[in-house]
């Protein structure tokens, strides 16, 4: 891009001048081109050079060497120069980039239209370079859009980038590309499908809304979770393009919320937040699933899900923050919760589930995730549990400056309400000289919030260092902080005050001024016996020039003029001399002082007061004139003044309440922590209020989920489903996982464990929670000695039987330990004759040392009577029997808490496999004993189950 590329440059400059001329009518032009110099010419004074494109155009401006003459006064020209320059440079920019783009765009166009892939790619890279710089490349649209179907993936992607950027401006041409995307949406490659949807939905052209809608609907049912994720993103794009589609989009959101993939969860919640944040009903059924998936969702999704669930929880659960008599209860073991009749509050198991499942995320490397968990605990957890977030928040202070800033803001808000949370970490908030100013001030704020009787001396010593800081703004803030400590903690008020008085002799004026202001506030809180300080300040008065400080001293003099009867009139005398040169605020306080002195000591000050009132009467400021008139009427008795005059003294010298020194973060807690609104301290667009806890919890059963048919391929998701189903069983949802945060959990675990070990066969409870992972005990069906080489073992996989719902699934492992192959292994006669068995298919041949696993189903008719049958090979028949333990005859069952008892100690609901009779087990813990209750219509079964459970628990 050399100068030669720009033959039209002369005309361009002239164009600019013409344009300028239209702006400034009275500019006359120099000779054509005389102000254009190429290369690096020295610009004389007042010239500005614009070197954006390889040649320098120097525009002489505001100089008096008459490059052009202007009808204006040179001084005004000088002043205007900047404005003109700004306008000109902008115009230059656009005019000059355009021709540049034009000329190079010509060859770009040629390159794009060539047959060579490499040339096209090169051209597209340059085009993307233009876009990145923010330059206009829209006129290449026709040439670019032709390549949308290119085979070269990189070229195609760059074309996508271009399309998304300019489609809005070139709607008609953009439509040409749509069919390509529609085709790509049907590609077998999921990545191509996803990218096509991404681009299609990013093209902001309203004509294609129906096409987009269709594409989103299809993609939301795609096999690939990645494509479904893209669909979730597309929902928001379409919504912002056409809000009328809301209803249809909500349907898609509803569908995607049910998605079990961790990939989709975060994205669909973003869409939910954007499109229909008020449709809380859509969350109910997915609440438990989201809680359980949370740990495996990618980190960005975790952040949005957690903040959405925080809002959800505040509408659905009752407050765990009952203060009064429950305080003692909270400090005691949570286990006792169930026994304490006096406490009506029990945490909803779903509430507990959320708290429990978010806790591990405090260890995330992602600061946003940690913060979102912290705010969740702050807004949802019982007060005594919030402390667990402290360490993690303090850890974040090691991170980048920006992270520190946000985290400190949040800690500042938290530390006002809960000092104890951060007090042990006080030293982490000590300021370093290298911290940025806003970080320093925030740390100071927190230290001040944390101050109490015990640590105040440490904090004050630390503050002493800060006051000496080179950063004067920070030093001033420290003085404010000392003032706050002094008012908050009465023990140290005197120490602080004397410290501040020492600062009055500081060399830096801001420090002195700030000290005066703070001292004034402090004296006001306890004015007795401080006349020394007031005298000291009076002495300093001549040397202080910051008006706020001067005004403060004057106010003090007036307010306590009776304590310093000799000094106050003298100060007034000095003020009378300098009155006219003072700032307004000082003048107002002078008038006040005069008035107060007049009332208390009119003998000495009558003339001075009159003089000052006269000065005030003719002051330039309205305020001062008004005040003067008011004061004169009030204090000087005359006929018109009436009754008010009598009360002048009581009006002016009334005892005044001391000002409150408060934290700037005091009312920040009206915003949800961690939000943008909290950070800027005003409501940001789209901020969702956190609702207050409901007085009465809404129906809990809305979150119950019908039993979902487990699909064998997706074992991971299945496990979360299972725990979904069981979570309704009063809070034992994740006993399968090892985390135990609530007291009831170890108990629960014990129960499941003991069931596994000594009871050998009865593992129903374990099966409920972890169907696919629980260690499975196998039993001998046929020993290889008796079976002439054929051995068989079986175990109960504890999954619903595939063949008939009334059957119990059994897996049999057949092994051949003989030296010859066995043929035609099948099941022969069975007894009792009516025994309903689903046999496995005959195994044609089992080689030596080989084994095979087959599954079968047996209907035990809810009895523990053994199922006898014959296992046959081609030559032999062996009688075998399977005797189930009662636990194997049960299936987990879902029911709402209302339907079941509300005990938390540990309970289980199930159905018998065959007849579907309900079996309810509840375990109620007393201090030293436990009450185990089993309710079922099958009494034999109940007694057997009771015996087994008792045995198991006793062993534990």
């Amino acid at each position, binding site marked *: 891009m050399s100068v030669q590329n720009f033959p039209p440059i002369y005309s361009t400059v002239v164009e600019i001048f013409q344009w300028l001329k239209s702006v400034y009518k009275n500019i006359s032009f120099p000779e054509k081109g005389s102000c254009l110099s190429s290369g690096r010419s020295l610009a004389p004074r007042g010239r500005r050079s614009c070197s954006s494109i390889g040649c320098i155009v120097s525009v002489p401006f505001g100089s008096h060497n008459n490059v052009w003459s202007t009808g204006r006064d040179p001084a005004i020209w000088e002043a205007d120069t900047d404005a003109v320059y700004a306008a000109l440079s902008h115009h230059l920019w656009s005019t000059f980039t355009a021709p540049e783009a034009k000329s190079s765009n010509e060859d770009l166009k040629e390159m794009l239209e060539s047959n060579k892939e490499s040339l096209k*790619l090169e051209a597209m890279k340059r085009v993307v370079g233009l876009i*990145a710089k923010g330059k206009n490349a829209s006129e290449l649209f026709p040439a670019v859009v032709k390549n949308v179907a290119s085979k070269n993936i990189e070229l195609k992607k760059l074309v996508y980038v271009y399309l998304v950027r300019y489609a809005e401006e070139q709607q008609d041409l953009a439509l040409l590309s749509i069919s390509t995307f529609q085709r790509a949406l049907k590609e077998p490659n999921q990545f191509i499908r996803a990218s096509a949807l991404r681009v299609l939905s990013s093209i902001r052209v309203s004509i294609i809304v129906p096409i987009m809608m269709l594409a989103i609907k299809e993609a939301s049912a795609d096999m690939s979770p990645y494509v479904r994720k893209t669909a979730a*993103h597309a929902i928001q794009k379409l919504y912002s393009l056409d809000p009328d589609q809301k209803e249809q989009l909500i349907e898609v959101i509803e569908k995607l919320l049910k998605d079990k993939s961790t990939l989709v969860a975060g994205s669909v919640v973003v869409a939910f937040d954007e499109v229909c944040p008020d449709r809380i009903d859509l969350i109910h059924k997915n609440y438990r699933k989201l809680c359980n998936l949370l740990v495996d969702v990618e980190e960005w999704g975790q952040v949005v899900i957690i903040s959405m669930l925080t809002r959800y929880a505040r509408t659905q659960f009752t407050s765990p923050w009952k203060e009064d008599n429950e305080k003692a209860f909270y400090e005691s073991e949570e286990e006792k919760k169930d026994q304490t009749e006096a406490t009506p509050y029990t945490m909803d198991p779903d509430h507990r589930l959320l708290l429990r499942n978010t806790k591990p995320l405090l260890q*995330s490397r992602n600061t946003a995730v940690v913060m979102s968990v912290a705010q969740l605990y702050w807004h949802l957890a019982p007060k005594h549990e919030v402390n667990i977030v402290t360490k993690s928040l303090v*850890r974040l202070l090691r991170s980048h400056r*920006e992270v520190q800033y946000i985290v400190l803001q949040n800690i500042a808000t938290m530390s006002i309400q809960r000092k104890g949370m951060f007090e042990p970490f006080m030293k982490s908030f000590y300021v370093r000289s290298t911290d940025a100013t806003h970080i320093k001030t925030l740390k100071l704020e927190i230290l001040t919030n944390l101050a109490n009787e015990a640590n105040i001396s440490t904090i004050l010593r630390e503050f002493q260092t800060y006051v000496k800081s080179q950063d004067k703004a920070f030093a001033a803030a420290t003085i404010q902080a000392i003032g706050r400590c002094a008012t908050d903690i009465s023990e140290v008020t005197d120490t602080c005050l004397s410290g501040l008085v020492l600062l009055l002799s500081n*060399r830096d004026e801001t420090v002195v001024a700030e000290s005066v202001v703070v001292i004034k506030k402090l004296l006001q809180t306890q004015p007795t016996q401080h006349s020394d300080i007031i005298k000291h300040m009076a002495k300093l008065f001549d040397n202080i020039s910051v008006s706020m400080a001067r005004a403060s001293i004057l106010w003090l003099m007036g307010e306590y003029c009776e304590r310093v009867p000799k000094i106050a009139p003298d100060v007034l005398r000095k003020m009378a001399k300098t009155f006219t040169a003072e700032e307004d605020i000082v003048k107002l306080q002078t008038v006040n002082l005069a008035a107060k002195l007049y009332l208390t000591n009119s003998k000495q000050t009558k003339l001075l007061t009159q003089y000052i009132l006269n000065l005030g009467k003719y002051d330039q400021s309205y305020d001062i004139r008004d005040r003067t008139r008011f004061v004169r009427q009030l204090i000087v008795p005359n006929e018109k003044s009436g009754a008010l005059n009598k009360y002048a003294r009581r009006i002016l010298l009334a005892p005044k309440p001391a000002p409150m020194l408060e934290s700037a973060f005091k009312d920040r807690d009206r915003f949800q922590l961690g*939000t*943008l609104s909290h950070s800027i301290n005003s409501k940001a667009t789209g901020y969702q209020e956190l609702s207050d806890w409901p007085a009465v919890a809404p129906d809990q059963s809305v979150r119950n989920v019908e039993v979902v048919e487990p699909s064998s391929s997706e074992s991971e998701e299945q496990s979360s489903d299972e725990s979904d189903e069981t979570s309704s069983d009063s809070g034992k949802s994740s006993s399968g996982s090892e985390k135990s945060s609530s007291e009831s959990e170890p108990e629960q675990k014990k129960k499941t464990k003991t069931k596994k070990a000594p009871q050998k066969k009865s593992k129903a409870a374990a099966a409920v929670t972890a169907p696919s992972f629980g260690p499975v005990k196998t039993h001998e069906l046929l020993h290889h000695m008796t079976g002439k080489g054929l051995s068989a073992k079986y175990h109960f996989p504890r999954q619903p039987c595939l063949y008939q719902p009334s059957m119990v699934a059994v897996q049999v492992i057949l092994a051949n330990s003989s030296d010859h192959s066995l043929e035609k292994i099948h099941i022969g006669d069975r007894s009792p004759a009516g025994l309903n068995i689903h046999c496995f298919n005959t195994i044609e041949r089992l080689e030596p040392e080989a084994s095979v696993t087959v599954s079968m189903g047996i209907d035990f008719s809810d009895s523990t009577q053994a199922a006898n049958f014959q296992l046959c090979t081609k030559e032999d028949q062996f009688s075998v029997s399977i005797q189930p333990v009662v636990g194997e005859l049960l299936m987990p069952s879902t029911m709402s808490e209302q339907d079941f008892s509300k005990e938390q100690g540990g309970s289980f609901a199930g159905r018998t496999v065959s007849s579907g009779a309900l079996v309810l087990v509840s375990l109620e813990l007393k201090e030293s004993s436990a009450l185990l209750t089993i309710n079922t219509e099958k009494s034999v079964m109940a007694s057997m189950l009771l015996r087994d459970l008792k045995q198991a628990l006793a062993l534990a």
Partner: protein
Amino acid sequence: MIHSLFLINHSGDIFLEKHWKSVISHSVCDYFFEAKEKAVDPEDVPPVLQTPHHYLITVHRGKLFFLSVVQTEVPPLFVIEFLHRVADTFQDYFGECSESVIKDNVVTVYELLEEMLDNGFPLATESNVLKELIRPPTILRSVVNTLTGSSNVGDTLPTGQLSTIPWRRADVKYTNNEAYFDVIEEIDAILDKSGTTVFAEIQGVIEASVRLTGMPDLTLSFMNPRLLDDVSFHPCVRFKRWESERTLSFIPPDGNFTLMNYHVSSQNPVAIPVYVKQSISFFESGPCGRLDITIGPKQTMGKTVEALMVKIHMPKAVLSANLTATQGNYTYDLPNKVLVWDIGKLNPQKLPNLKGILSLQAGAPKPEDNPSLNIDLRIQQVAISGLKVSRLEMFGEKYKPFKGVKYVTKAGKFQVRT
């Protein structure tokens, strides 16, 4: 969520812009420039700014501002964390994160930004996933690409995107299988004038460099895990195993990554490796001051202190420094008023000393406050907290990897007040 991104250099030029939703004019950055004008130091610019229609969230990294524009409520840390992740990715791809490098690789940068966000929501931020989508530029590859016409862009979905372990790519193969871990500890401390410790704590990080074939499952255990008070993990670490057994069990990402960050429990006293004797004073009369600093070893665990460096932010009035150092060199950076004394290795027999005169601007008042010293140091082969890795085991693969653990102690924010 994130609407647009502008990259801005120190002189205030916007040299790259990317929009994930509709285009926002770069004039929105004017509010930022206004705030930048007001701030003394670029670090002082508030990270969150409010403008009439937008909110600007800015991150300052390596002399660049990453300015993002958001229009609606969003957790600010979400944006900040993401912007830092973008900067990390650039660093990872191009070796550094600077204006010139970004300008040279503008197309790759643009492709990366396109993949990292969709409609303002992060799509792929794992380095391993991104590297499968867009291969990092190397000289060899660019030559090959020009010859064969192949491209840097992958056309299949990276395996990581779908799996439950997105951080690892499939089919990794190495001839030399190695797993190295660096345990790096930093001492954060504030010492007061007399040398007493005001505040000290140890923060540690375990950086891993793992190049192993296939899908190895590693377990790293410590001799003394009780030292660790607070930890944060790479997502690959199984948290439940940590809770129950205090061992790190994980399927590692391929390449370099941070395995964990930790904070050493504050019950343990922190060993401060060096002591500093200093006196900086400014005379009441005459435009000068005196400086005298000596550094000596204190608790070094029997190791040598290396890369010792002292940095002093001088008061504004200090014009020049005329000093003599018994060891190392000193420089005084006048515009920033920073005195740097680069000492190098600390010799316990002959303690390094820096002494001399500071001249002040004529007529300027005597500086109120003495500047604090920032100390930088490094001790090889020791973790100052005493943390030790006891063993590393590998499951799931048959070969025998090379394993190694290295310990380093550094000074973090180590400040001596004067």
